[in-house]
C-alpha cells in the first residue's frame, strides 16, 4: 500500500513539472496575439487593404418579431446587391446626393454575415459581439425591437463600431439612450403621437376615454407616454394603462377588463405578432360593435405595418395608425425600391424592409463620401446629412440626436383591398414641421467620437 503511494507521488512530481512548464508556455501565448493586434490597430475592424468589407445584419429570426426580421434580411441582401452594382440598382438611381458608384464601397466588394437577435437583449448582444470579434464587420445594422436596439447600440459604442438601427420606434433610442455610434432612420413614438393627434380629434372628437394596452418595454412605455400626452392635450381622459408582457400570445385576460372600464377608445401599444393577437381578440370580443358613453367604441394602433395588417386580416379594416413608409407611395424612390424588391422576391416590401434598406445605403454612401471607414469620419458625414429620393421626401439626419426627420404617414386599414398587399390607405401625409421637436426634451448624451 505505502509502496504504491510513494510510487504515485514520484511519478506525479515529474509529471507536474512537465505539465507546469507546458501551462506556462500556453499562458504566455496570447501575448503574441495581443501584441500583433496593437501594432495594426488604429480602429476596430479596419478593412485596410482587403478587397472586401463586411456588414453585420442582426435581425430577429425567431420570436414575436420574426416576420419583420425576415423582411429586413431580404432588404439587406437587396441593398448589398445594389451597392455591389448588381441588379437594377434600386434607390441608387434616385437617391440625392449620392457618392456610391455601384462598385462596392471605396472599391471594396461588400459581403455580409447574419445573426439572430431572438428579440432578446442578451442574445442580440452575443450575436453582435460574434460579428464584431469573429467576423470583423465594420457596421452592424438591424433589430426589430427598441429594447434590442438600445442594448446593441450601447455595445457598438463601447466597441467603436457604427450601428444603423433598423425597426425601432421608442423615443429612448435617439433620446435618453442615444449614442454617438448609433443612427436611426425610422420615426419614433413622439412623431406618431404628433401626427395622429389632429386626425384623432377630427374623427373622434375631444370627449373620449382611452384605455391603453402597452407592451412592457422601452418602446411600449414611450409610445404610451407620447400618445397619452397627445390625447390628453386634446381633452381626452385616460382610464387605465395596462402593461402586457412581450410575446404573451393570449391577451383575453387583458381585454376583458376593457369592456367594463367605461373607456370608449382602446389604444394598442403593441407590435408584430402581439398586435395581431391583441387586435384579433379585441375584435372577437365585440369591442368594435359596442356603444359606450353614446359613442362608437374605437380601436387605435399607433404604430402600424403592412405585415401586421396582413396577419390581422379582416380585423384591420378602418383602424387608424401611423407608419414610416408604405409601398403604395408614388415618389421615384419608393417606386424604384418596390420594383426591384418585387422582382427579387415577388411581393412588395414592408416598412421594416424599407428603413433597413435605406440605412444600409446611407452608411455605405457616408463611407464613400468621407473616403474612409474610420468611424469618427463616417459619423461626422452622417450628422446633419440632408438627402432625398429615398421614399420619404426631403430627409435630414439631425446632428444633435442622430434621428432622421421627415414626413410621417397616417394610415387606415383599407375597407376594400384590391389585393392581399393593398391593406393600408394613406390617410394623410403629415409634414415634417408638425412632428419636429427639440432634441433636448428627452435628455441623454451622445458620448465621444473616439472610443
Amino acid at each position, binding site marked *: 500500500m505505502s509502496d504504491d503511494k510513494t510510487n504515485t507521488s514520484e511519478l*506525479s512530481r515529474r509529471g507536474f513539472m512537465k505539465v507546469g512548464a507546458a501551462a506556462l508556455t500556453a499562458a504566455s501565448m496570447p501575448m503574441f496575439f495581443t501584441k500583433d493586434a496593437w501594432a495594426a490597430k488604429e480602429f476596430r475592424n479596419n478593412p485596410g487593404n482587403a478587397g472586401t468589407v463586411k456588414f453585420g445584419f442582426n435581425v430577429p429570426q425567431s420570436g414575436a418579431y420574426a416576420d419583420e426580421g425576415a423582411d429586413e434580411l431580404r432588404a439587406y441582401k437587396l441593398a448589398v446587391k445594389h451597392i455591389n452594382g448588381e441588379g437594377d440598382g434600386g434607390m441608387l438611381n434616385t437617391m440625392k446626393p449620392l457618392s456610391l458608384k455601384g462598385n462596392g464601397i471605396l472599391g471594396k466588394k461588400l459581403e455580409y454575415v447574419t445573426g439572430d437577435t431572438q428579440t432578446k*437583449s*442578451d442574445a442580440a448582444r452575443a450575436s453582435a459581439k460574434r460579428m464584431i470579434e469573429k467576423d470583423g464587420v465594420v457596421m452592424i445594422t438591424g433589430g426589430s425591437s427598441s429594447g434590442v436596439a*438600445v442594448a446593441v447600440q450601447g455595445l457598438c459604442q463601447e466597441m467603436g463600431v457604427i450601428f444603423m438601427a433598423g425597426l425601432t420606434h421608442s423615443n429612448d433610442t435617439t433620446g435618453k439612450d442615444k449614442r454617438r455610434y448609433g443612427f436611426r432612420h425610422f420615426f419614433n413614438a413622439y412623431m406618431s403621437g404628433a401626427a395622429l393627434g389632429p386626425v384623432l380629434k377630427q374623427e373622434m372628437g375631444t370627449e373620449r376615454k382611452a384605455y391603453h394596452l402597452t407592451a412592457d418595454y422601452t418602446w411600449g412605455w414611450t409610445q404610451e407616454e407620447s400618445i397619452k400626452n397627445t390625447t390628453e392635450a386634446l381633452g381626452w381622459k385616460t382610464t387605465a394603462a395596462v402593461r402586457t408582457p412581450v410575446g404573451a400570445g393570449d391577451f383575453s385576460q387583458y381585454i376583458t377588463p376593457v369592456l367594463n372600464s367605461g373607456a370608449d377608445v382602446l389604444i394598442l401599444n403593441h407590435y408584430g405578432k402581439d398586435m395581431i393577437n391583441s387586435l384579433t381578440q379585441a375584435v372577437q370580443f365585440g369591442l368594435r360593435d359596442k356603444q359606450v358613453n353614446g359613442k362608437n367604441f374605437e380601436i387605435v394602433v399607433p404604430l402600424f405595418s403592412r405585415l401586421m395588417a396582413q396577419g390581422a386580416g379582416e380585423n384591420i379594416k378602418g383602424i387608424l395608425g401611423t407608419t414610416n413608409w408604405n409601398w403604395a407611395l408614388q415618389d421615384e424612390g419608393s417606386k424604384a425600391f418596390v420594383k426591384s424588391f418585387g422582382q427579387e422576391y415577388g411581393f412588395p416590401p414592408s416598412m421594416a424592409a424599407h428603413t433597413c434598406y435605406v440605412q444600409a445605403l446611407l452608411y455605405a454612401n457616408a463611407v464613400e463620401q468621407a473616403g474612409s471607414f474610420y468611424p469618427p469620419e463616417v459619423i461626422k458625414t452622417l450628422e446633419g446629412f440632408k438627402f432625398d429620393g429615398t421614399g420619404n421626401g426631403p430627409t435630414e439626419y439631425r446632428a444633435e440626436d442622430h434621428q432622421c426627420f421627415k414626413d410621417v404617414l397616417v394610415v387606415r386599414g383599407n375597407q376594400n383591398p384590391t389585393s392581399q398587399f393593398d391593406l393600408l390607405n394613406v390617410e394623410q401625409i403629415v409634414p415634417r414641421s408638425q412632428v419636429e421637436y427639440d432634441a433636448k426634451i428627452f435628455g441623454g448624451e451622445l458620448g*465621444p467620437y473616439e472610443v
Partner: protein
Amino acid sequence: MSMPLLRNDWVVMALFTAVVLSAPIWLSPVGAGYPDLLQKFAIFGIFAIGFNILFGLTGYLSFGHAVFLGIGSYTAVWSFKLLTMNVIPAVVLATLLAGVFAVVIGFLSLRRSGIYFSILTLAFAQMSYNLAYSVLTPITNGETGLQLTMDDPRVFDSATTEGLPSTTLFGMDMSGYPGFYFCAVLLIIAFFISLRIFRSPFGLKLRAIKSNQTRMRYTGFNTKPYLLTAFVISGMYAGLAGSLMAITDPLAGAERMQWTASGEVVLMTILGGAGTLLGPLLGSSIIKYFENIFSALNDGQLHEIFAFLPDWLENIVVAIAGEFVGDGWHLTLGLLFMIVVIFLPGGVVEGIRRASAFVRNMFNKSATDESELSAEKE
C-alpha cells in the same frame, strides 16, 4: 496506464489549467477562438460545475437554478452603478447575495425531494422572473434590461472620462481576451473547489444521499444540513457565473432567469455527464458552441465547406445539412441530446471513457496476441 497520475489532484489541476488557458489557441481552428464565446465557455462552465455539485452528487434536480444567475447579474450591474467599475466588489457581492437567496429558497424547497423539489425550485424561479420582469422594474428595468448610464453615482470612482466607463480589474479592461482570462482563472478556482468537494468526506456524504437517503437517516445522519450546504454552494457558483456575465458585458436582463435558462443548465450537465467532474464543463461548451457557431452558419458557408464534392452531390448535401444549421441548430442539439441519453446515459464523459477503454483493449489485445505468438514460436 496514466491512471495513477490522473488520480493526483495537482496533476489534474495543472492539466486543466493548461487546457483552459490555451483555449484561444486550440479552439481557433473550429471557429470558436474569439473572446466573447471563450468567455461564455468559462462562465457557463462555472454555472454547470456548480449545478453538478447539487444535481450530480445529491441527485436533487433543481429546475430553477437560473434565478441565482440572474441575481448575480443584477447585483454585479448595481455594484458597477453604485460603487465602482472594479470587478472585485461585483464578484464578491454577487456571490454572497446569491448565497443568501440560495439559503432562503433552499431551506423552503428542500423540505421535499424528487419531483416536488424540482417543481418548488421551478416555481421560485418563475416567480423571480416575473417579479424582475414587471413588478421590480425600478430595480431591474424590466424587459429592456439593467444598463449602465452616464449619471450613475459610482461613489468610489473618480470622475470618469467622457463616454460610458468599462469594467476593469485595477485598471485592466475586462472586455476581450483579458475578460476571458479573468473568467478562466475563476473557472480554474471553481473547478478546484469542486474537485476537493468531490474527493472529500462531505462529497461522499452527498453521494450517499443520492444512493439511499432513507438509509442515511436510519444510520443517524441528519441529511438536511448537507443538502442545504450543497444547494447554497451551487447557488453561489451560479451567482458567480451571473456576475461574470455582467462583467464581460455590463447588462442584465430578466430573460436570464427564465425557465429556459434553468433548463439549459440541466441539459448541459446531463449532456456532459451528471456526477462527473468534467462532464458539465464539456456539456456547457458543446451547447454554447452550437448556439453561437451552428446558429450562424448559412447556406453560402455550407457550400464553401462542401466545395470538394461534385456539384450535384454538393447541392444535395447542403440542402440537407442546411436544415440542421442556422435557425435549425436546436434540431441538431435535440438529436445529439437524444443520442447521448439513449446510448450514453453517462453523457459525453462516458463516451470518452468507453472510447479510451476500447482503444486500450485493442492495444492490450495486440500485446497479448504478440506474447502468445512469441510463446508459440518458442
